[in-house]
């Protein structure tokens, strides 16, 4: 069976005045219909760029320099801008961290929702209003009729994020890419939004790519996980396997550094140093200067992804 979305050896470069830097370095990913995938990593790991490159929205001076993206059997990475528009915001929707990035402060929620619909579908305005209402109900917004006439600033952060999800749902997309959708929100609201996303995926058989730095959130929400470090996926597989039996030292370190994984008051296990900047990636395994288990070969050879004993994939020479 072919996958709904495939990323093959994707490479994204940023052309800077000091030369090109590689932001995404040979990423392979697959996503099936109805599957939920968590893309985890620290800031600068390339997880957001990966998300943006899927819908071909990498901001200048970035560009896809190698590899391809296949969606529903078509190579969308080579699509023209115009053709891409049929996919972006239609078959693949994106949710951003800051709701105000998507919502225009000078238009009402209703106007923005209806316009999105009219741009993608050939329907009348009253039909569009009906769909908008239906989606607002779907994201469990109280009294959706009144929301249509409200402006973004009249709503709370949690409510805005729900509106964003409703807008993303308007065109019944097959994939939703959510980039840190709850980072700006409080825990109680975060839990509600995550519940909502999970529910939507189940009922509508939608696929979700959840991009976040929060391993705990991913471990609760998604079935599959891919951990990124310095532009590469270093470990991937079924979420519960990766979380309970991490094989890559970086994943292990990340999990152990979360307070709550050990007894209160004890020293947290920390990963020494920090992630290298993309222009200064060390030779060999990018993680080797911080790795506590490194061996000689790590400094010279780039590890290939290998199947681990628990069925996950990890790029580490120790396996």
């Amino acid at each position, binding site marked *: 069976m072919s996958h709904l979305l495939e990323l093959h050896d994707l490479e994204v470069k940023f052309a800077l005045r000091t030369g090109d830097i590689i932001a995404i370095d040979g990423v392979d990913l697959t996503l099936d219909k109805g599957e939920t995938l968590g893309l985890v990593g620290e800031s600068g790991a390339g997880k957001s760029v990966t998300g943006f490159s899927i819908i071909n929205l990498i901001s200048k001076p970035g560009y896809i320099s190698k590899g391809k993206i296949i969606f529903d059997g078509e190579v969308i990475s080579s699509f023209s801008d115009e053709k891409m528009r049929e996919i972006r915001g239609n078959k693949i929707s994106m949710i951003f961290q800051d709701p105000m990035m998507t919502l225009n402060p000078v238009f009402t929620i209703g106007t923005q929702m209806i316009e999105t619909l009219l741009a993608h579908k050939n329907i009348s305005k009253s039909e569009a209003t009906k769909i908008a209402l239906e989606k607002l109900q779907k994201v469990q917004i109280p009294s959706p009729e009144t929301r249509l006439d409200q402006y973004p600033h009249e709503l709370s952060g949690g409510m805005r994020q729900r509106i964003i999800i409703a807008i993303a749902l308007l065109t019944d997309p097959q994939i939703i890419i959510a980039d840190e959708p709850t980072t700006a929100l409080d*825990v109680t609201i975060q*839990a509600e939004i995550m519940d909502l996303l999970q529910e939507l995926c189940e009922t509508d058989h939608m696929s979700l790519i959840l991009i976040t730095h929060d391993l705990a959130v991913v471990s609760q929400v998604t079935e599959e996980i891919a951990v990124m470090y310095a532009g590469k996926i270093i470990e991937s597989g079924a979420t519960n396997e990766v979380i309970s039996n991490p094989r890559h030292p970086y994943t292990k370190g990340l999990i152990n550094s979360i307070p709550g994984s050990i007894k209160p008051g004890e020293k947290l296990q920390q990963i020494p140093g920090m992630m290298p900047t993309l222009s200064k990636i060390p030779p060999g395994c990018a993680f080797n200067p911080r790795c506590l288990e490194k061996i000689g070969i790590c400094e010279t050879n780039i590890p290939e992804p290998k199947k681990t004993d628990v069925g996950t994939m990890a790029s580490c020479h120790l396996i």
Partner: protein
Amino acid sequence: MSTPILTIDNVVKHFDITGGFLDQIRFKNGKFKLEKTTVKAVNNVSLSINQGETLSVVGESGCGKSTLARVVMGLYAPNSGQILYSGKRIDNLSHKEMLPFRKKMQMIFQDPYASLNPRKTVQRTLEEPLRFHNPKMSSKKIYDKIEEIMEQVGVDPAWAKRFPHEFSGGQRQRISIARGLILDPELIVADEPVSALDVSIQAQILNLLMETGKKRRLTYLFITHDLSVVQHISTNVAVMYLGNLCELADSGTLFENPRHPYTKALLSAIPKIGETSEKHIKLKGEVPTPIHLPSGCVFHDRCVHANERCVNQIPELLTLDNGTCVACHAVEENRVIS
């Protein structure tokens, strides 16, 4: 029992956000009236910390925890109530009288990108408090001290001449901590010191704070929204909601046996790694604005246990058998099964 190092006694802090005189004029019932809009950020909060303890104040955004920290540091004057340092009232002191206390209490800020002056090198940032409080200290001593403190927080002293923008977020936070420590304070107020950092860096900074805390017998007032961090580092935890204190207990008790309905909801919402999400407690509605506080218990309109009394009467903080202090009528009347 010895005097607590810091006592927050019935502190109230309201902010007037009305603006100028013209903005205050309102037309109501056929009359012009002057009306002020106030944000009721902190309402009657009392807390105390003993030497060497870590008290965490947790709550969601807008609950007044950061304001409380700034009232403690004397950045805002409280509308009423007192701040006592080792039994001496400090909130009404003049700038000059306050100086000896400034040496003893320091603050660490949230945003490592905003908390360091971008135009000052690390050395000058660290030098300033030392020279100010010890005008007779020799330059040699000052530089030695800077070197010592930079080593302690894990920043290479050779980088002292660099500007903040040349450092990463984690390193900046270390420098910020160094500035807090350089006067050898007794109390550190830390306002969300790790929430802007990546997970692996967060662990480094938390370890640094805990280690220096132990080494220097520091007392921490820790402000954060991240409950897993709280559980890890705190002796006592205070939960705030909408400017009011809901619950105060020692860390172990609070996480094992939360009593206030809001604390329960908050704890159930923390995502825990490796656990598939069990059903968390859903709260009705949203946090009201601190401009128009709900009557009675501020939590009543979101609470499943609320009744008539909760709507009308503000709950007092009462101490339960296990030492937990909680402000809830339902707990008092045993309407909440714990």
